[in-house]
């Protein structure tokens, strides 16, 4: 099971700022190991964020995104106590979902 994300979310005047750190190798599929074998591609392909169940952010990622990626985004209409849920899915079908309560 993949490691949990680190999510920090703050609100100011109903605008939420969400910062997410994801633990992922993000292998491009273009590197070779010391034995000369290609290291298989392994990277996050989609990231979805929802606010109280409604999708507010969606990203399609590829192998150009760095290892252990950091994502920051903002959205309006937020208030304290609301829930923000983030889900990523990688090219091997592995997935991880974490949630944070706005404060």
């Amino acid at each position: 099971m993949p490691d949990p994300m680190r999510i920090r979310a703050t609100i100011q005047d109903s605008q939420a700022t969400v910062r997410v750190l994801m633990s992922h190798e993000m292998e491009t599929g273009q590197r070779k190991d010391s034995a000369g074998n290609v290291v298989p591609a392994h990277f996050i392909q989609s990231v979805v964020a929802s606010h109280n169940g409604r999708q507010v952010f969606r990203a399609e990622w590829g192998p150009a995104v760095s290892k252990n990626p950091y994502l920051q985004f903002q959205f309006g209409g937020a208030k304290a106590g609301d829930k923000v849920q983030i889900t990523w899915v990688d090219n091997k079908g592995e997935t991880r979902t974490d949630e944070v309560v706005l404060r």
Partner: protein
Amino acid sequence: MRRTFWWAAAIAAATALGLLGIRVQAQPSDTIKEIERYREALADGNPAELWEARGEELWKTRRGPRQASLEACDIGKGPGVVAGAYASLPRYFADVDRVMDLETRLVHCMVTLQGFSPAETTRQVYGAGTKRSDVEALVAYVTAASRGVIMDVPMHHPKERAAYALGERIFFFRGGSHDFSCASCHGDPGKRIRLQDLPNLTDRNDAQRAYTSWPAYRVSQGELRTMQWRLYDCFRQQRFPALEFGSEASIALTAFLASNANGGTFNAPAIKR
């Protein structure tokens, strides 16, 4: 592609940190401000936090043959106390009658409290991709609890003073194919290797700035690296053989460097190129 981006990002960040030799004072002040802003943004998303989180989990989970957590581990401030502990390490521990740094002490606790064999605890001291290091994660967790704490490495016990004296001798020890010592690169002010600024580790200000920024997430490696790794990789470039994890030389040298940084404010895990 991503490497190029990270290099650019890391160079910008490292420049603001004064780690690279690009002469910041020669730049217009708004450039410095922008670099500073960029550095802050980068530090804001420092993946070291992922190691800190995993380390906290490892610290609090019952593990090993004895199914014990590390919450009874005394790293210098009493059993289970992590807050501020790293700022006073290495130090003398009466129960083992010797000076230990954080990494050695963690291994000691994993063996004595959790019942791991020494070989198990040091099998993967430096993480490599999916082969992760528990020690690096634990170090991230413990050191983060000293952020903002003033460095105060004790020099009371004779063995602490002996470690410092030995560490100083090792710092100036020339050997290997290239006759390098630590001091070859880190013994004079205002030097750089290629474009990278070299801290003069015999100078209090430089030593404080350098020591308090380790451990660090190395963007170029995608790994969190500890002081033990820093010394290991310095000696590799010094053309010495491989420094053994937790060895007497590594602890003595750390005691010398940490003590030279006394009075500085600890600010790690940091992020570096």
